[in-house]
């Protein structure tokens, strides 16, 4: 049951037959782990908190730097030097006191990540490096936890959804099999704020859809966003039977 306050707060959700009170209740029950509180995690966390996701766990180990403020919209100038997860947690609780927010202010070793996954219904990968992305993917495959992956640099974005609770789901490693390769990130390539914000926002949208039971148009697909033309390309991803993470081998 939703309280009178919740009925008012979420009234624009409740007007939608796709959400309604039952869907809002699902959002309230949901536990989401967001890894990375940068340009993707900022809008994703704000939207999920606003939407009433009942349990949010925020993970990052960075402090806020002045160069973050060009795109990481949770933060203000006066936050420079503070912990990203602690500042985000405070902002989210101010935004929505009805939800529970927990922060993990460290780089999680694999064992801790696995432990966190036992308590998560869904993971958003909002990180900024390939090694961490591969570790999150592997842990989500093993724990059978759905994973929504966002990435962006320059004027390009990538968005993927792998529902590892379903059998025969491909994984991030099927698509990008090497963690050692030189990959592009925001520090070495640059990024325009609304490009990474668009991808993070869509990670939040897909999360909300997942919990209210709406089918996703991007499961087992890679969406490429071109910020110059605003064109999207959609590619189907097949499970690689020889994948060292999710394959039979």
């Amino acid at each position, binding site marked *: 049951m939703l309280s009178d306050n919740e009925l008012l707060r979420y009234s624009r959700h409740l007007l939608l037959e796709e959400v309604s009170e039952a869907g809002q209740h699902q959002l309230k029950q949901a536990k989401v782990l967001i890894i*990375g509180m*940068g*340009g*993707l*995690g900022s809008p994703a966390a704000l939207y999920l908190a606003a939407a009433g996701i009942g349990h949010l766990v925020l993970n990052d180990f960075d402090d806020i730097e002045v160069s973050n403020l060009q795109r990481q919209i949770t933060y203000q100038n006066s936050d420079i030097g503070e912990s990203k997860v602690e500042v985000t947690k405070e902002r989210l609780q101010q935004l929505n006191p009805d939800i529970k927010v927990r922060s993990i202010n460290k780089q999680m070793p694999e064992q801790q990540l696995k432990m966190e996954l036992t308590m998560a219904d869904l993971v958003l*990968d*909002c*990180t*900024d*490096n*390939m090694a961490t*992305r591969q570790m999150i993917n592997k842990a989500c495959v093993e724990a059978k936890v759905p994973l929504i992956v*966002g*990435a*962006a*640099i320059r004027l*390009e974005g*990538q968005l993927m959804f792998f529902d590892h609770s379903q059998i025969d789901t491909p994984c991030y490693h*099927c*698509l*990008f*099999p*090497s963690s*050692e*390769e*030189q*990959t*592009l*990130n*925001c*520090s070495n*390539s640059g*990024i325009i704020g609304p490009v*990474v914000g668009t*991808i*993070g926002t869509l990670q939040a949208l897909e999360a909300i859809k997942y919990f209210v039971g709406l089918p996703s148009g991007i499961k087992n697909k*890679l969406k*490429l966003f071109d910020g110059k033309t605003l064109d999207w*390309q*959609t*590619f*189907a*991803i*097949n499970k*690689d039977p*020889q*994948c060292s993470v999710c394959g039979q081998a």
Partner: protein
Amino acid sequence: MKIQVNEQALTLPSAMNIEQLLTHLEKPLMGSAVAVNMQVINRSEWNQYDINEGDNISLFQAIAGG
């Protein structure tokens, strides 16, 4: 053989598989992903997957930023 690579027309001098195409185009194998007609081809299949006349090839890089 006429194909499209990232929406550019291209004529290949001979039949080739995806791995040979990347080498022909002087693209790095590491960090690249390849789709043929909007279907991602897993890297383990690159040396067996033959390009066909008229194929629409998409090449893109893994990006990690966020």
